[in-house]
């Protein structure tokens, strides 16, 4: 995986007038997503933030092709998506490694008819990328939470998707491991140049990683604001500008006085 590697031109991801509702237990239609419109450019990192239950994970699942929308379309480069495809990889909140497969077998799950050697080479390359070399023959139960999530990232990258969908991927990790993984994602993105779409409820994570942050409101899930993060890389979590962006997003969720956007920064 060299830096020169150019991704196949997939074209932008386009979400148009997307709506989805669920039936509740008492037969009431609960609108989860309402008229979502969003475009994600090639190579862009977009983070979607919102309360839990605002439908952001459902949105990601529809893009992944795991769920159907009630109305509206999702397309990549003009091609309307109807189900999962090799152009999209997904990283879930839980690592979701298959407990009965070794890490190597998990990483190469997406390949059928490969020789042993091919599988070994693929898993070796991606396990190195996520710093898990030496764990190819281990079972998931032998890995810590952070390591398992790394293995899940390797699995998602192994099929070389143009777009990575991340569903609160670090939500279950401790604070320090989380920061480490965020740095890892930045590194992978630099090397891999894939488009990334991440759902999170961690505003700091969104500001740290994303080019744009989509703010969603809940019930029904709607796009409330899209904030372009214009901070130089590498981003400094302690800087005033960083704090300003955090506040700028936070203000959408709490409308009391304490959370007003400061008018100037020091």
């Amino acid at each position, binding site marked *: 995986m060299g830096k020169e590697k150019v991704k196949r031109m997939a074209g932008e991801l386009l979400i148009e007038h997307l709506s989805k509702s669920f039936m509740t237990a008492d037969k009431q239609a609960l609108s989860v997503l309402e008229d979502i419109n969003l475009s994600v450019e090639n190579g862009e990192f977009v983070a979607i933030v919102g309360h839990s239950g605002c439908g952001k994970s459902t949105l990601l699942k529809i893009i*992944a092709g*795991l769920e159907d929308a009630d109305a509206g379309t999702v397309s990549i480069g003009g091609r309307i998506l109807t*189900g*999962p*495809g*090799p152009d999209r*990889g*997904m990283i*879930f909140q*839980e690592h*979701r490694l*298959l*407990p*009965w*497969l070794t890490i190597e077998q998990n990483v190469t*799950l*997406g390949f*059928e008819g490969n020789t042993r050697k091919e599988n070994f080479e693929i898993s070796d390359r991606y396990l190195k990328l996520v710093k898990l070399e030496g764990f190819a023959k281990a*079972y998931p*139960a*032998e890995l810590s939470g952070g390591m398992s999530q790394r293995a899940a990232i390797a699995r998602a990258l192994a*099929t070389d998707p143009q777009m990575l969908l991340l569903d609160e991927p670090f939500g279950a990790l401790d604070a320090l491991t989380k920061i480490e993984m965020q740095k890892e994602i930045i590194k992978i993105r630099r090397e891999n140049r894939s488009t990334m779409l991440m759902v999170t409820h961690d505003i700091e994570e969104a500001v740290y990683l994303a080019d744009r942050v989509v703010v969603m409101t809940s019930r029904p899930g709607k796009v409330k604001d899209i904030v372009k993060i214009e901070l130089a890389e590498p981003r400094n979590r302690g800087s005033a500008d960083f704090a300003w962006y955090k506040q700028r997003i936070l203000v959408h969720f709490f409308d009391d006085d304490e959370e007003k956007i400061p008018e100037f920064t020091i």
Partner: protein
Amino acid sequence: MAWTLFSLILPLLILFAWLYVTGEALVPALLLPKPRIVLNEFIVQLTVGTIIEDISISFGRIVKGFGLAVLFGGGLGIIMGMFVPAERFFSLTFTSIRQIPMMAWVPLLVMWFGIGEASKVAVILMAAYFPILMNTSSGIRRTDPKLIEVGRMYRLTPWRMFVKIYLPSALPSIFVGLKLGLSISWMAVVGAEMIAASSGIGFRLNDARALMQFPIVFCGMFAIAIAGVLMDWVLTLISRAAAPWERKR
């Protein structure tokens, strides 16, 4: 090791109680022979007697009946686990048939198949079929939907989906069914042989009772217990070998 010794405490207590009760002649020797007499009889049976042959005849029936139960019960269990309509189609019928105790099948099966091999194999099949079927299908149905999503994400073919996700996920439950089925088969074959048979360990037990050879009755019961434990142990070893990841948990 400590646990092995610990689990031996109760059997030893029972043995001491047995020695005490028979030593003090608290019960008639005819009804409860002394351990030494049973042990002697056991050695005689092992060397010149028929007990090994009896057990192996019964065991041969188990192999046939249990094998068929694994084939049909496991096969249909997989189909019922994978396809909801199949589950709905069979479940009422099977739940009803299951309510009939396996021994209640013996008269009917003897009428149909005679008192020869076929009726014994049929009894075992009936006994082991449902535990294997039910545990297989529920094991498959309980596969974590989150892992199924992973399989869908990688667009696994139906066959790979089954082999990589459903089957390994159901394996512990399938082995529970196999173990249950095997122990019930063992009970079923002994029971069926006692009711209608001319060979096998169950027949020997009943025969010895009729001839008032109580030490042989005791030997037979011990042999049944030992053979059952051994079969369960072999199945445990197989289940461990089949699911190496379980030990890493």
